[in-house]
């Protein structure tokens, strides 16, 4: 290890007011029901710095952030603000002290409008009367600031996950703050939505706000951070100056050993005839006349920005929302799926992008979650085979590297990334021959990402086929044989081989002038 931990806090920004930490944590520890999750964590955050916190899934990052912002109370240790000890009874206290948290999981009331959500608890207006206009205008401004294009009047339940994340950020940023904590704010955002957000973060920093930033996208960390704190298994590895800390080095610090490469080497495979053909798909309001073909053994990528309609296309295909098709063919035969159950029976698995709302029963234990979509397969007899279920869970925990502190945990108590792995294991339990993965690595740490990529590759090697919907361009480029780029409900371009570059994807995702075209480089599959 050549980047030595910074033992004595030194300002990365040079001298100035920044040298007095706004917020300081001293030997924090947190245990849930006797299970220790964090121990001996000390760090400080200074005005005008971006302090990144990284670590593997389940390392304790989110837990630490909740301790700092009053959502949880530490089991041990103390917090100091401006040099004075402070204890928060709840998030409201921390907010009053100027600490805002953007949650990893979306925490909004779906039944309410965007404006209402943003202003819950601090509505504008005098004498009891609400000032709707002022709130709407402020909300619109705030949304514009974070680059969110939804109407302030829209119901949160009706907007996409990515937009919900932006609304949540807009909500957190309302008002003035001294410390803003971002817990994986970009996990659900595409390339083009990330930039405006990072700009805002830099702006906040320039205003002297202290920023805590968590992300598994280490390139972002490299770009933004002044200092980086690394957690592993609930303990501090250390706090480092960001200078000269490469993503590769960060990854190695996180996992505690030398980290190899992210994307598995491409292996030549036979990509055979079509397995799934969709012609003239229409999903009212979202998808307009989309046709695509997936081949046996192929990894087909679907790129696009928020609202491109990728998710809706497949929700329509599975009978989860109203849709019509010119034709759907499975292995050459006409097919129609009225429900995900029918699709599953036909060998199509779908992993939702919304793990909290549509993927997992957060209050349930892990085994029932794992087997929920494959009950008939796992339990062929009338009664449940709990022993078998237990084994399956063991196997899933091992093969997907799900990290849990307690076997008795509820799904909602897993860290975000571990929830995602559980969800993947759940979908795979049906052994689909065609797998549609919507945002496969959302919130997954870098080591596990490479595992998931290897896993997807092993699937197609077995002759299965895979559609990957992803907001991470590199992921698509590194993994896919072919990429379709969607824009405003239409396919706006197809890329393969060397033509799969970030700039090409971005071009087709944003520009309407780039008419639907097929661009393939030399190394097209073969």
């Amino acid at each position, binding site marked *: 290890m050549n980047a030595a931990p910074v033992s004595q806090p030194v300002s990365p920004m040079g001298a100035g007011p920044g040298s007095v930490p706004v917020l300081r944590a001293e030997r924090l520890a947190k245990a849930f029901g006797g299970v220790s999750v964090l121990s001996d964590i000390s760090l400080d955050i200074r005005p005008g710095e971006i302090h990144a916190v990284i670590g593997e899934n389940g390392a304790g990052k989110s837990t630490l952030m909740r301790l700092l912002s009053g*959502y949880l109370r530490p089991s041990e240790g103390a917090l100091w603000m401006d040099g004075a000890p402070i204890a928060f009874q*709840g*998030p*409201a206290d921390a*907010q009053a002290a100027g600490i805002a948290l953007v949650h990893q999981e979306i*925490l*909004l*009331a*779906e*039944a*309410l*409008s965007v404006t*209402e*959500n943003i*202003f*819950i*608890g*601090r*509505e504008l*207006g005098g004498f*009891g*009367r*609400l000032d*709707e206009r002022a709130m709407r205008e402020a909300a619109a401004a705030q949304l514009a600031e974070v680059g969110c*294009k*939804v*109407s302030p*009047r*829209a*119901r949160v339940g*009706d*907007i*996409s996950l990515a*937009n919900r994340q932006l609304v949540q950020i807009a909500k957190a940023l309302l008002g003035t703050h001294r410390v803003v904590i971002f817990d994986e704010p970009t996990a659900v955002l595409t390339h083009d939505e990330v930039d405006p957000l990072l700009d805002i973060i830099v702006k906040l920093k320039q205003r002297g706000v202290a920023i805590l930033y968590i992300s598994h996208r280490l390139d972002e960390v490299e770009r933004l951070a002044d200092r980086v704190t690394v957690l592993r298994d609930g303990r501090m590895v250390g706090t480092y100056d960001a200078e000269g800390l490469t993503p590769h080095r960060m990854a190695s610090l996180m996992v505690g050993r030398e980290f190899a490469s992210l994307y598995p080497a491409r292996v030549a495979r036979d990509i055979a005839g079509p397995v799934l053909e969709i012609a003239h798909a229409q999903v009212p*309001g*979202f998808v307009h006349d989309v046709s695509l073909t997936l081949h046996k053994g192929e990894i087909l990528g679907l790129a696009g*920005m*928020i*609202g*491109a*309609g990728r998710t809706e296309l497949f929700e329509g295909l599975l009978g989860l929302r109203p849709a019509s098709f010119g034709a759907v063919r499975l292995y050459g035969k006409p097919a129609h799926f009225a429900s995900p159950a029918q699709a599953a029976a036909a060998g199509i698995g779908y992993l939702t992008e919304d793990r909290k709302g549509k993927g997992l029963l957060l209050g349930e234990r892990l085994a029932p979650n794992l087997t929920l979509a494959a009950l008939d397969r796992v339990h062929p007899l009338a009664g449940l085979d709990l022993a078998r279920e237990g084994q399956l869970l063991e196997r899933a925990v091992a093969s997907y590297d799900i990290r849990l502190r307690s076997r008795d945990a509820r799904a909602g108590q897993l860290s975000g990334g571990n929830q995602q792995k559980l969800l993947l294991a759940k979908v795979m339990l049906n052994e689909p021959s065609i797998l549609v993965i919507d945002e496969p690595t959302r919130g997954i740490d870098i080591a596990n990402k490479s595992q998931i990529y290897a896993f997807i590759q092993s699937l197609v090697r077995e002759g299965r086929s895979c559609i990957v919907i992803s907001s991470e361009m590199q992921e698509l480029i590194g993994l896919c044989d072919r990429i379709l780029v969607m824009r*405003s*409900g239409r396919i706006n371009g197809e890329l393969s081989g060397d033509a799969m570059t970030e700039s090409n994807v971005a071009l087709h995702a944003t520009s309407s002038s780039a008419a639907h075209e097929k661009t393939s480089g030399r190394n097209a599959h073969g």
Partner: protein
Amino acid sequence: MADLAAAPPRAEPGWSIGWGDAGPFLALAALIAIGFLVNPDFLSANNIANVVTRSAFIAIIAIGATFVISSGGLDLSVGSMAAFITGVMILFMNWVAPSVGTAAIPLGMAVALVTGIACGLMNGAIVTLGRIEPFIATLGTMGIFRALITYMSDGGTVAIDRSLRDAYRPVYFGDVLGVPIPILVSLAVALVAAYVLYRTRYGRRCVAVGANEDVARYSGISVARVRTMAFVIQGACVAIAAICYVPRLGAATPTTGLLWELQVITAVVIGGTALRGGRGRIWGTVAGAVILEFIANLMVLSDFVSEYLVAAVQGVIIIIAMLIQRMSKR
């Protein structure tokens, strides 16, 4: 971006009634049309006035229930609370009447309001401090209020003093420019309630608590306080309804308000408020209360149904009204 186009702008709830909320009014219109076909007398001014006046109690109580339900609660005690408040009010008025004369009436009204608020506070406290499922908590207080009125009346009738009867009568039977007073009162209550629910901070928070308790709590809202307040509003509304009710029959009995809670909840739900909270519709609730009363009226005015089957037909109509309400949402 597609986004702006994608989310269809929804009408803001408020004074004006948006299209998406037209359901209960459509159901009401359909019912009135059927009523007219069945018996033209249905639309006689007299009948309409009677029915709407009658619906005032349920409407006023249901307006309170709109707060409780949209905040994620439920109050089963309203019917027996109404009986209890009526009893307390009458006993009080009878007690002071000999010394203060008809001034007993306004005093009695004040006592009723205070009693209602206290009852609501009790419900709210049990639900929030005791952290007991509202269904169970208010089922408990329902028994308590019902027993208290039975006790107060010795199981019989608590009747208002003759000397007050005539002075008080106009509160139910009187009218202003031809509009019966209970209708005016319920309109006033609805206006105030709509203002509070749609236009004030409290209303916003009430719905937020019902929509997602965690979000509300983390946004610094005192969930317990908001919920308790909703029960207090409910108590006040029950008191207002009781105040209008007393002059009608001039008495409280152990059967006063029996099963009103079911009618109240039905009115609220038919009106478009979500039973799981997070959405409240004051005018819809009022329409719901009127619908229920019209259905009952229609049963009597039509000659089709054997007296034994009235409840069945009512059940069917309620389900159909909900279907109309539901369909108009697409």
